[in-house]
């Protein structure tokens, strides 16, 4: 049987993750509008079947057939049934795409392709809402799900990026780098190149203690920033008095009594400063902190 797994011709299988409002629907629409291949798109977020009217050839029940040979179907009648129908007609498609809901673990859906010999496992892109991500990550109801989605991603697509300030962009990047080694892709309006999205090689996902902490107990984040530089001694004293609950810290800082821009990184109780590119548009400091308890995060500027 193991030999069967490689000899049959395979159709690639991609699971797109991401939370409600991240922009998955515009991503799918963008993909379908520029399709040169025949996609089968399974939408796991019920009722999210908002396909551009110009693309539609016919609409039958939960299935939409598109003029370019693609189909889109909601998993309304249950996941098993919808996916079963696609597998029964697999020869009609060049690529199967599942749009997973924000509460599903994309990796668990991807397991279907690991089992089915006619499917080929591809990496999972996960879409994030640039404006809401930091808030969502510490929401008591969905925070752990956001962390799991980030951890399961093989590509992180940060949508609505254009709406952020420079500082917000940098802290968001620092935040995601703490949680995942997946490449980051910044975009607006869900515009992502199909090859980039669908050609991903699956990464091996090492288990991360930070993600485990987020899953079991939740994590909180805080950005401390000011436009003015800070005295080096004051900064060191501040960094030393941070609570042990603060598990990670990362950010850029300028000092009143030291030249250049410095990258500050904290893991557990250890922290260090390294010289950074001086050209960057930082005038003061912008520091991201991730901690176990909201009360342990400093709320104001460095004094």
């Amino acid at each position, binding site marked *: *049987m*193991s030999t*069967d*797994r490689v000899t049959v011709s395979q159709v690639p299988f991609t699971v797109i993750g991401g*939370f*409600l*409002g991240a922009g998955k629907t515009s991503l799918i629409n963008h993909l379908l509008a520029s399709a040169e291949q025949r996609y089968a798109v399974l939408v796991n*977020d*019920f*009722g*999210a*079947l908002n396909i551009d009217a110009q693309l539609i050839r016919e609409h039958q029940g939960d299935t939409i057939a598109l003029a370019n040979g693609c189909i889109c179907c909601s998993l*309304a*009648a*249950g*996941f*098993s*049934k919808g*996916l*079963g129908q696609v*597998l029964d007609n697999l020869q009609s498609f060049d690529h199967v795409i599942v749009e997973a*809901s*924000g*509460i599903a673990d994309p*990796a*668990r*859906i991807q*397991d*279907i392709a*690991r*089992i*089915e*010999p006619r499917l080929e496992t591809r990496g999972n892109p996960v879409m994030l809402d640039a404006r809401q991500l930091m808030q969502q990550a510490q929401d008591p*109801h*969905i925070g*752990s*799900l956001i962390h799991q989605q980030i951890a399961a991603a093989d590509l992180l697509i940060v949508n609505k990026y254009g709406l952020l300030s420079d500082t917000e962009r940098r802290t968001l990047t620092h935040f995601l780098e703490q949680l995942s080694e997946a490449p980051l892709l910044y975009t607006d309006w869900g515009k992502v190149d199909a090859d980039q999205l669908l050609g991903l090689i699956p990464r091996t996902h090492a288990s991360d203690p930070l993600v485990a902490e987020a*899953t*079991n107990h939740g994590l909180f984040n805080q950005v401390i920033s000011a436009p003015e530089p800070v005295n080096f001694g004051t900064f060191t004293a501040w960094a030393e008095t941070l609570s042990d609950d603060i598990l990670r810290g990362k950010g850029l800082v300028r000092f009143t009594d030291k030249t250049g821009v410095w990258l500050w990184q904290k893991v557990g109780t250890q922290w260090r400063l390294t010289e950074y590119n001086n050209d960057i548009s930082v005038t003061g400091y912008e520091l991201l902190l991730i901690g176990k308890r909201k009360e342990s995060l400093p709320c104001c500027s460095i004094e």
Partner: protein
Amino acid sequence: MSETAKIFVARKILTLNPDCPEATHVAVREGRILAVGTAEEMAGWNLPVDHQFADKVLLPGFVEAHGHAMCGESWRYTYLGFDDQYDPAGQCWPGVQNRQQALVRLQAADAKLTDPKTPLIAWHYDPIFWSEQGQLLDCHALDRVSKTRPILVMHASGHVINVNSALLAMANLDESLSVEGLIKDANGRLTGELRDLATQFAVLRVVGNPLIGEVDLDILQQYARLATNVGVTTASELYASLDDESLQSYRDAAASDAIPLRFYAAQNAETLSIEQGIERLQLARRACNEKLHLGSCKLIVDGSIQSFTARLAWPGYHNQAANGAWKQPPQLMAQMIREYHQAGVQLHIHVNGDQATELVLDILEDVLADAPRADHRHTLQHCQMASEAQYRRMARLGLCVNLFSNHLYYWGDQHSALTVGPARAKRMNAAASALRHGVPLAIHSDAPVTPLNPLFSAWCAVNRTTRSGMILGEAQKITVPQALHALTLGAAYTLKLDHLVGSIEVGKFADFAVLEDDPLKVAAQDIKDISVWGTVLAGVPHRAAKEQASEH
């Protein structure tokens, strides 16, 4: 219908009607109650007297306000549950308590299948209660039943499946795979146990998706048989798909005189967009008649406590398990509740953990402030962990609660030891709190999760006794009359059917449960053992199926 006009005489009639709590005579005409009271009070009606219930006790027909028609389908498959259970024909299937018993039953079922390709499907396997934990139904054991026929065994929890080697091969599951939920032994060999979506999808695709919740006329008929056997005259499907085919099955079942049950179906809101869902409900409402009640909607917020998928507030699970899973993103749940509420739809909302309850209370508080609606009667379903403060909020927001008291017996010991710990287990399914705070109360079985049997559910709420005999929360016990109310009028109230069924009053449907004994006279610990003669639906008696002695 005039031929059904008559007067039933009974040893006693418990009416749940405050003007006449107990009676001996009830007159029926055109399927409705014409009069209830004493022999003298019947004198004015020149009707034939029916003495067949002269030694029986009549109650309003029981109302199962949270069940699933799927329990009618489940008996197509082989029963492997730990407890004795009765099938629609009234036959008792003894509980399966070890591997030897399970294999004997599976071998008998295998011998009955003529086509060697037909899958053998079994349900309600519950190994957590087996004493020999080293001897379970792994694929090697199942291979002793058949090496060629696919065999699939569903666990009682609904989350785990066991299969034989033939089915593993047909589903392309082998040892070389490394996917979540494909359980292997210490030597890396497959055990046949499947725990996650992908592996279960692979085997269900081979055997054709049993028990996924779609109904046909036969399933509804079997459901009605199970109901009649336990005195239920109105039963719900609280997760209905109301597509054209299913809707037609409900209409056919309601139209059939051979199916003595009033059906209530709440639409499963997960499979449709909100817009489509509201449209479907408007269509479904037009199909309503005296035996078919449609128009409400079911939402599921979290999972179940015994499988650690319910969402718990601090301090979480007693055994430190990670918090459970939302069934929908909370933001989407808020949108669904708001839009269905604004469309005038009644909502039945599944919440098991207390964090899920809190989320829904927060959402409804906002929604009701923006869009107040008199008598919305939104009902929290299961709601097993609600705190005193949450009951106070439910009362303020005008919510009803339908508690899952059967859990106290079936999983009470596990809840106390593992899931929520002894302190919180004492107030699980807090029926006394609901009554104390004036929250309208119903009690349910969630059949087939636990067996459909209102007298057993009443026993659970009254005695709060676990399988091991421990009393779980003396303070939350309710009285027998309170429990009977919760299973008749209380249940009907949560379905907005309390003006039609649930008590014996003039003008209501002539639906009765016919019991061999008086639940107010037997000892409280014996109410579950009262025999049920059958039911009366719209004035017509229906005998419970009789158990025949047989070997399984």
